[in-house]
């Protein structure tokens, strides 16, 4: 259940950022989670609901967590760096079959933006 630690990271960083802007209440936190990470959205939402009530994160007590899933993509060095999307088990270049490709997306764990008052 490493989603608990990840959610603490989301809440702590968001509270810091919003305090820095002079805000007092967080309405929505938007994050991106890559498809190649080991993060489960249900567990993230569960941890978020449990943790947002903690005194340290009081300004996020009514906040919503919005998750955007980012598909995995890689670039093939032998096909002029052409980028292709793929799943967990088919990361080989669809044109030449090269398995030694360079990951471009899919490993994100990022806070994109925060909506606050």
């Amino acid at each position, binding site marked *: 259940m490493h989603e608990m630690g990840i959610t603490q990271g989301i809440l702590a*960083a968001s509270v810091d950022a919003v305090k820095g802007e002079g805000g007092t209440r967080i309405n929505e936190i938007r994050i991106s989670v890559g498809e190649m990470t080991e993060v489960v959205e249900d567990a993230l939402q569960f941890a978020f609901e449990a943790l947002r009530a903690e005194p340290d994160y009081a300004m996020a007590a009514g906040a919503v967590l919005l998750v955007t899933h980012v598909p995995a993509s890689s670039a093939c060095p032998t096909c002029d760096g052409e980028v292709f999307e793929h799943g967990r088990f088919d990361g080989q270049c669809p044109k030449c079959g090269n398995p030694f490709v360079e990951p471009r997306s899919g490993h994100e764990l990022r806070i994109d933006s925060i909506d606050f008052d």
Partner: protein
Amino acid sequence: MAEIDLSRPILDRNEELAAGNRALFAEAGVFVLDLMASPGAGKTSTILATIAALRDRYRIAVIEGDIASRVDAEKISAHGIPAVQINTGGACHLESDMIRRAVDALPLDELDLVIIENVGNLVCPTEFDLGEHAKVMILSVPEGHDKPYKYPGIFQIAEAVVLNKVDTMPVFDFDEAEFRTVVGKLNARAPIFPISATKGDGVDAWAEWLAGRVDAVKRA
């Protein structure tokens, strides 16, 4: 109502501390290995076999991560190797600040290789950079050849895969060819080292790979 565009990594605090660890390791010229596996795959036995193979060539220390207890650190210490125990108190993985505190208890300048035994878990340790040079995972034969289908992330992030307990292959329904095919699809770069940590089979090839990495850091 207002909005901030943050575009900030969620784990940036851990990543900053990992960068600090990396700088410490570079300054000391010590190679750091993060060893991950499920409970019972043979992490401690593999570490002991690795120590036996390399202790004449390198000065080695071990950082033992566990939810509770000191049993693994005691096993390592019994072989005359410095071992620091980290108890996570329930956390399913190690983080950079824990490694930093453990490293402060080690004579880093007098070491060539530090092996971190992560908490037994095939999921959580994959997301956390500790500042290590390489993450390596161990799968054991009794766990089954289908594990890469169930836990692909750890196979994708590992720089090498150790397949332990190969001496039990005749007893279990483990399809090594299929295992190699699926690991190849997930991570074409990772070599696979079949070993029996307790019997010693295959340990030399694994230890030579590791020695190559340690030497590269010492030369740098």
